[in-house]
């Protein structure tokens, strides 16, 4: 085990200072890590926010179509259903 590990575990003020000082390279090391943290977090946060927004939009549109309930929308549904999965009973009845 390295001596460095033991001294940090004792958590002396001078050790903490040495840790944050990074051997005089603090102004290069810490911005690198902070910037990386920001970029990675931004990736996650931005994607999550966009997914929420798209989900809300899709749900709204689906609800609007269901409210309209026209046969035209049922036809569109069948066009864009790539799996060929069976529709719900009501939709099949409406189509025929």
């Amino acid at each position, binding site marked *: 085990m*390295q001596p*460095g*590990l033991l001294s*940090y575990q004792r958590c002396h003020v001078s050790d903490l200072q040495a*840790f944050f000082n*990074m*051997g*005089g*390279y603090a102004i*290069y*090391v810490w*911005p*690198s*890590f902070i*910037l*990386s943290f920001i*970029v*990675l977090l*931004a*990736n*996650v946060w931005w*994607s*999550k926010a*966009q*997914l*929420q927004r*798209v*989900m*809300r*939009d*899709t*749900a709204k*549109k*689906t609800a609007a*179509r*269901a409210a309209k309930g026209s046969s035209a929308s049922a036809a*569109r*549904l*069948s066009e*864009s*259903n*790539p*799996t060929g*999965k069976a*529709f*719900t009973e009501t*939709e099949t009845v409406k189509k025929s």
Partner: protein
Amino acid sequence: MFKWLHRFGSAPFVYRLATVVSPWLGFACLVIMLAGLYLGLIVAPADYEQGESYRIIYVHVPAAILSMFVYVVMAVSSAIFLIWRMKLADIVAQASAPIGASFTFLALATGSLWGKPMWGTWWIWDGRLTSELVLLFLYFGYMALRSAIEHPQGAARAAAVLAVVGVVNIPIIHYSVEWWSTLHQPATITKIGKPTIHRSMAIPLFLMIIGFQLLYAYVLLLRTKIGILQREGRAAWVAQLPEMSRV
């Protein structure tokens, strides 16, 4: 076997799979990155030549490796899209572009922060740095091309061609340190058989690389879901999703 593979072309299957798998990826990413940071910043010793400044390696190298890895994923899925017209491959390529661009930016920025104390300059037109900058512009070009063409199918195809052609830059980045050896140091861990790095420094580096990979996988799944919803939003299976009644 092929039937099993075929399911990965089905949007509902991939969407549900992403919903189940992504939280686990996010959790694993967090744990592994924290372990990598602890070992890299606290346990690993200082470098005999570069002192404490070498610790930038723990974010710089993973970002740089992922910047290339993400591009290869983007190029391969673009090729699959062009050859077999597989919509999901296009979604994956589109989802990868902003993530790859952010990793490339990170590799350049942290490299700059490392170059200043070690080389005495923020930037130099060295082979590695220049080809990595070209990679950033390839990502930007891909995204710009997608949004510049009105017709979505035309945009997808044009951007896919750009991604496939641009993959020629990846070996250039990789071999740049051998072809034009100016300031950037040669490879540390990808040397076959004989890595020039001690285990106490290599383990945290590997953990950070795996952590970055997991983060890419996690964000890729989130963005793939976005892409699927944008294209298949009107499909019946989307309306039946449980989260559609919740949001």
